[in-house]
């Protein structure tokens, strides 16, 4: 209750500004509907009903049905679940990897730093999607390879930021003072380094999830990502593309979902530098 008392919506809005309010509002709507939406819709996203294919939105099928008569709302939500969960999972993995290796590189310096930095540069030299494509080529449609591939492209950003910032922080006299006073490495990590990294990591995380979701959709669109009959936004776009003239409202739906998700993620961390 204290939380609500001290942060009335108006105060919160003033504190974080217009664009972030919109972003966070949109993001919460997307997350809430992803979590509880499938139960509310009540249709099976894989159940075909060829007699009622390509229906306009109606009372039974809120967003209509696709070319195989599957409920669009159920498929979109199922796709959202897949994209968001895979995106978040890859991001957590990448963040864990990138932050720990970044701090290790900054802390130990010398050859540890050189080795890790050249490794990160080597990954950075490959276009992100290409790396995932190479992995996916060995076993198309594998969920695990998709996860590993996306995590592998995302961690570099975390690594580079963490290493760069930590090197500056560790050279600061206050760290020298803390070491001199006998304070533990844990103190330096949690009181010197993490507070300074926090805001930047938020931004990188939001952009990271966004690019993970885009990558999943892009791979689905070129049919190397998630396989049918699973519902996935990029895959849905490919499948609905032939019908764009007769039923444009169908292909527009996954596109709008993707755009709104990416937009909400980007907006929710925008303007972090402003007080």
């Amino acid at each position, binding site marked *: 209750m204290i939380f609500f008392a001290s942060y009335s919506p108006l105060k919160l809005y003033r504190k974080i500004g217009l664009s972030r309010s919109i972003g966070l509002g949109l993001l919460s709507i997307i997350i809430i509907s992803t979590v509880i939406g499938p139960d509310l819709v009540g249709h099976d996203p894989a159940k075909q009903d060829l007699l009622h294919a390509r229906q306009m939105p109606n009372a039974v099928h809120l967003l209509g049905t696709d070319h195989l008569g599957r409920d669009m709302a159920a498929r979109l939500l199922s796709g959202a679940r897949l994209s968001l969960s895979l995106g978040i999972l890859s991001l957590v993995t990448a963040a864990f990897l990138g932050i720990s290796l970044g701090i290790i590189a900054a802390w130990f310096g010398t050859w540890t730093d050189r080795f890790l930095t050249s490794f990160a540069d080597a990954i950075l030299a490959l276009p992100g999607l290409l790396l995932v494509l190479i992995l996916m080529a060995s076993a198309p449609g594998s969920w695990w390879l998709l996860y590993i591939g996306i995590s592998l492209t995302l961690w570099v950003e975390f690594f580079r930021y963490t290493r760069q910032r930590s090197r500056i922080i560790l050279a*600061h006299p206050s760290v020298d003072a803390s070491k*001199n*006073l*006998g*304070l533990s490495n844990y*103190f330096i990590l949690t*009181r010197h380094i993490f*507070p300074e990294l926090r805001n930047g990591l938020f931004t990188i995380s939001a952009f990271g999830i966004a690019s993970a979701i885009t990558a999943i959709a892009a791979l689905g669109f070129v049919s190397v990502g998630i396989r049918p009959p699973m519902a996935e936004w990029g895959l849905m776009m490919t499948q609905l593309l032939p019908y764009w003239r007769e039923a444009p409202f169908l292909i527009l739906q996954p596109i709008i979902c993707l755009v709104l998700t990416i937009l909400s993620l980007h907006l929710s961390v925008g303007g972090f530098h402003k007080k």
Partner: protein
Amino acid sequence: MTLLSVKNLYVFIEDKQVDLLGPISFSLELGENLTIMGETGAGKSLIAQAILGSLPTGLKSRGDILLKGEAIDNLSPKKRAALWGDIITALPQEPWLSLDPLMRSGQQVAETHRYFKSYNWKEAKKQTEQQFKKLDLSDTAQKRPFQLSGGMAQRVAFAAATAGDAELLLADEPTKGLDSHRHDKILSLLKAIPQKGDSLLTITHDLDLAYALGGKIIILKNGKIVEEGITHTVLSSPKASYTQALCAANPSSWPPLSSCTISSKENILVQSEKLRIGRNKIAFIKGLDFCLKAGESLAISGPSGIGKTSLLDTIIGSIKPMGGTLTRAEHIGKWEIQKLYQDPPTAFPPLISLKDNFKAVTKKHKMAWDQLLQLLENVELDASILERRPSNVSGGELQRLSFIRALIAKPKILLADEPTSRLDLITQETCLNLLKKLCREENIGIILVTHNQHIAEKWAHNHIDLNQFCV
């Protein structure tokens, strides 16, 4: 002719309608020289910012600012910025931070000539060359700022600031953090301004600088004028009690050290013989002999870059001596050599509360929290200060907090690297006296690094001038 006149100037926080400063009134004639003095953190810089029209967001000024008889305080920000460089110019604090790090220094200055005086590039380059020759900078035109020494960088910044031939130069703390050699250099540059017929407004807490500049002076306390007049009269026979305290706090007028004897020979903490110090195989200092006993103070002085910090690092053990011997007493434990830092805000983790920091230190060194509160009381600090972050605490308070923080570790030796060079005179005196008292009570040997000859001679038991040991 009156160049600048300020009447009843106030600077206030817009939201809260709280005055930070004011009323301030003064006038400055062409060719005249005015110094504004006061404590650090009292908002002296706000005066310069109000005149320039560059107050931080959230702060506003009211009152009249007249430049050549015309009111400028209600002009649009754009029109005020148009005065910069042409009529008003500002010499930045710590100029080496204000130069473009990637541009050759000659180019940076030529730019000012090109755009402010509308010369073509060829003429601008020629003007720059002449200016550099006058400032003794001829060989630096092709160098980038990181290749310049601090003094050279300062002269380059000075050249850039004055290239537009502005009639009014605002110098905000021009000597902050400078050693005496660089101090004299900047002084002679500033002195030349009124002689040229332009006006100079200096804002400083440096009494020696104010005295050397002469002209008129205004003494500020808590944002109000307490005394004003001709500099030499005001400073030699101060009337207001604050001015008297300020003059008395200048190290050159400190009373000489009352002789006291440190008897016990057994209590030698650290001793060196023919010590040779350097970094990366380049020696800075040779043949240094010194000895520090418990409860004793030792001052080390010398210009910047002579190796004072390397000497401290050698004593603390983070670099090895290149020759000679350095013996530390065996009973000195791992955490029993503590350091005090030059710039108090940089010695504390910036984004956590002081309490968080002190909790960790007291826990490590097994001191009860009540005992810490007692220590704080001894140095006249309120415990509530610990709730804040370092950036919300004044420099003097923060330096006292760092004494206390060092004392928690129960040190035997305290190394203080210019601990007061960024504080104003009165705060400096209180801090140094406190430091001396604490060290005597706790029987700590202290080594003080300073560039101020007077402090070195009058504060410490022993004084080493590193100039004599320079390689």
